[in-house]
């Protein structure tokens, strides 16, 4: 009689998994790492700090140019160049941190439906990063604009001015999607060093080399690089030609989708 319980097929483990539970566990892992908060705080300080410093430097040169409002908005968001790296690393560490410490074995034993793990990580990352980048971009604009107004004779810049809204929130969106690209790269490569090297290569080094070394007849290809596609959204794209704002942003999102899909495919099909 007692053997009856043995013959009963074991209940599939995955049956107990609820998305909310996996989400909660990922949130716990995410928030309990000190590096998470360093990167988050670093992002806010960099975004606002660099924006204000750029404006102050511009004013302190003596005769700030009568710039169109959209250029002032771009200057307040200059930090997006570097917060892309900061949050890209945060995205990378979502997976590579676990592979580095061996935690991934536990995570996958507990959540054998691997793609579910990926969605949970992605959700936690997005829910933190998106408000973070949009909020700090807004703060940077408001603080930079205050510095701008403080100088006598300069006209304050507002959201009503052409392109300003798109530049301020666009820069935040681009940084957030870069973090998602980092997430995809980390899920594919699984090594922290390899992933950071790849992200930096794609986003920072290849555009520089493309700018100086590409033959003139193919130099236009540089605008399809992820970094230049994203920069088209808020300005500052390197290279002679750039995509239009929203198509550039759409292309960047496309890259993120492809990277994350490949990561999901590798997680599902390959060894863990």
């Amino acid at each position, binding site marked *: 009689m007692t053997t009856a319980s043995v013959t009963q097929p074991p209940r599939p483990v995955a049956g107990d998994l609820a998305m909310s539970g996996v989400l909660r566990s990922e949130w716990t892992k995410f928030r309990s790492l000190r590096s998470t908060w360093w990167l988050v705080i670093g992002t806010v300080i960099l975004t606002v700090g660099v924006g204000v410093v750029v404006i102050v430097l511009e004013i302190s040169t003596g005769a700030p140019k009568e710039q169109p409002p959209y250029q002032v908005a771009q*200057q307040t968001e200059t930090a997006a160049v570097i917060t892309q790296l900061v949050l890209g690393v945060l995205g990378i560490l979502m997976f590579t941190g676990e592979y580095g410490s061996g935690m991934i074995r536990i995570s996958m034993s507990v959540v054998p439906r691997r793609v579910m793990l990926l969605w949970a990580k992605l959700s936690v990352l997005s829910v933190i990063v998106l408000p973070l980048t949009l909020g700090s971009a807004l703060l940077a604009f408001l603080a930079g604009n205050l510095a701008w107004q403080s100088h006598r004779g300069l006209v304050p810049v507002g959201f009503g001015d052409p392109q300003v809204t798109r530049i301020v929130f666009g820069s935040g969106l681009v940084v957030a999607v870069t973090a998602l690209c980092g997430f995809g790269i980390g899920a594919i490569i699984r090594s922290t060093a390899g992933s950071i090297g790849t992200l*930096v290569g794609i986003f*920072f080094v290849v555009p520089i080399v493309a700018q100086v070394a590409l033959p003139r007849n193919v130099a236009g290809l540089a605008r399809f690089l992820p970094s230049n596609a994203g920069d088209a959204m808020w300005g500052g794209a390197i290279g002679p030609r750039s995509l239009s704002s929203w198509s550039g942003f759409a292309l960047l999102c496309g890259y993120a989708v492809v990277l994350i899909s490949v990561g999901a495919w590798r997680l599902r099909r390959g060894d863990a």
Partner: protein
Amino acid sequence: MAAAAPAAGPRMPVAGNLTVTGVLRSEWTKLRSVRSTWWLLATAVILTVGVAVFVSPGATPVKPAPYTFARNTEYGSLLSQLALLVLGVMVFTGEYQSGLIRASLSVVPRRLLLLWGKLGAFGAVALALSLASSVAAFVLGELAQRARPGRPHVWFGDPQVTRIVIGAGLVLAVSAIFGLALGAIIRNTAAGLSTITAVFFVLPLLFRIALPASDQGFLRFLPSNAGGALWDAALSPTSMTPWSGFALLCGYTAALIAVAAWRLQHGDA
């Protein structure tokens, strides 16, 4: 009795057995037995030479000055710089990450000796590889150029060509050592890599966008642009003279090595 005998005498200091060659050999073993080393070195060579052969010829004017031509063949070293920086940072952070550093410091308790051993082994590899790849890039780039009719020949005797070709290799090697020293200070792979890539690739871009035109002269003192001066590739409006730029890059690297040595010697491991 037999057991007591060794305990009675004062123990021989462990460090007495250490020789520089032994430490160098162990560091070389560690370096060559990690697969990522070979991946990154191969990537560095392929990128340097590949850009010289396949990309640069199209971007070079039909009758370039010899030094312009030489510089254009070396642009790939910007890409391999990333590979070597990663490798350099990981010489120390890899050990801290895996815990191997405890074994290393137990075996080589004179900590500075460990630093010199790593610097020696990695520095030699980086220097040999950088020089070989920069020379190969120029030579193969030149051969690719020769294949096209009507292009002028450029060779080592031409003005400044030798400085640019060898200089690109030297800068590559010194930046790799810069990465090693930074890794020894920061000790964490993710943080070390973010910092070094920010210093070499993001800050020049950020400052170029952010600084008003009148303050852009400051850009020439960044490590990347100081090194770039040696092979005419400083991506800044003004540039230092070649050798003073290279000297500044070496100075930055020496300062970082000093900080790393101090931290290793005086701090917790």
